[in-house]
């Protein structure tokens, strides 16, 4: 088993619409894209974020960009000024995503 931070294989950015957080994730090297698609299932991401993301998660794939877009509802503690989080807009949800550990032998 070889566990690595997702950050070493992928990059991306997070954005917000109300209480919905969106994280796009791209393979740093196109050859890892199929592996990332296999390992970054909605179930896995839901389990990883636990209570931080209270709503549904949907993943959209954009194969031409070797990228995926994760749309996570009720993920920002209420969103905008409702949220009591330090990061009300979820700017750091992208890096939070990237510290997930993935098993490259999988």
């Amino acid at each position: 088993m070889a566990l690595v931070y997702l950050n070493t294989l992928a990059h991306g950015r997070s954005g917000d619409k109300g209480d919905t957080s969106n994280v796009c994730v791209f393979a740093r090297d196109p050859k890892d894209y199929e592996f990332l698609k296999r390992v970054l299932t909605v179930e896995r991401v839901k389990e990883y974020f636990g209570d931080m993301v209270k709503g549904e998660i949907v993943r959209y794939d954009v194969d031409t960009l070797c990228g995926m877009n994760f749309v996570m509802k009720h993920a920002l503690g209420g969103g905008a000024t409702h949220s009591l989080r330090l990061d009300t807009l979820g700017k750091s949800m992208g890096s939070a995503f990237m510290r997930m550990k993935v098993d490259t032998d999988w």
Partner: protein
Amino acid sequence: MKKVSIGGGQGFWGDSPDAAIHMIRHGNLDYMACDYLAELTLSIMQRQRMKNPAAGYARDFINLMKEVGKEAYEKKIGIITNAGGMNITGAVDALKAVAEEQGMHGYKIGYVTGDDLLDQIPKMIADGCEFKNMDDVGDFNEIKDKLVNANVYYGREPLMDCLAQGANTVITGRAADSAMFLAPLAYEFGWKGGDLDNLARGIMAGHLLECGGQGSGGNFQYDWRGVPDMDQLGFPIAELTEDDFHITKAPNCGGLISEQSCKEQFLYEVHDPANYITPDVTVDISKATLTQDGDNRVRVGGIKGKAKPDMLKLCLGYHAGYKVVTYLSFAWPDAYEKAQYAADILMKKMKRKGMQYEDLRIDYVGLNALHLDVAEVDEDLIKRMNEVVLRIAIRTKDKKDAQLIIPEISPLQLNGPPGASFFGGRAHVTDVIGLWPTLIPRDAVKLESHILEVK
């Protein structure tokens, strides 16, 4: 072949003017669009306007125009902005004053009104509009008497009307961000409503530019160390012809235009890539391509358009109570344990004083305030922490409850665990504005284009 070059001059209200000034001077632009409005901005502007009828727009834009407005006019660079916010005519008057002062004779300011629907909400309710929340939460009846603002997102057409009347600058309220970029492109190329693929290309030009520096190496996770000269970060510029589309930036500035920098912005805040909904067109980027095509130059391809939606998005802001955020810092040894103890003291005091709250959050800045549950926290890290900042955030229904904690923070320097250090002055209670996104029929909206010439 005709080529149109448009720059993204501002990414938000409060952005640095440096890149916009640089691209007017050196970017060889035909147009520049400046985005000032995020989801909550109009609610904030509305409250400013309620306190001062002359306020309620992005004053930053007027300051920017003082700096480069005349040069842009002389170079025939058209400028489009949503800086009008909640006081469009206020922004127009302020810009007119600048133009007169600088002798910009014949300068034409176009502006669009009609996105502010607050006064029409009671009639729309009477007409049977349900204002169902797009996120499927809440009951509209509970917020309908607490509304702060109600603004509809609209598309390119009224902006194009201003351009057709010779506007040098177009000021709007809640035009969709990307519509500010699509409008001049559609105007220049003569794209009609059925040119769906072209309209979609124009929208994606806007999407890649509307966040300013975030499209040219800012907030770049892939390789932030590799972005040259971030102290003079240039903002992105789109160059379009009838059949080609590039992203680039002005010469002699910092920043980076690469496949990766464009990718991170491309899907940012797009939900379903096959159905990115805008007032003008539904965009399909599910098969789009981004290809390096020279130094700081990326070709964008494969964008498709589908029919525009039947409805328009209306965003309502409403009063949702109060909020207070307080901080107190602690140093080694036992920084985290002392911060926890301070939080415990404060919560006991608040309980004794009868504070009522809707929501409460205690975080430790330096440990887990950003990554929350997925931050890696272990005993060794906690033991070795040099310092930590206790952060307590409280949301209340009544203002007086939020005020209770404010005077109790700084005394903990003398009355609490050792080494507490208070900074930043006393906290303030702020209003919480809730957002209520909903859909309304297009025919409920009457937008008007106007033009004003500086003599």
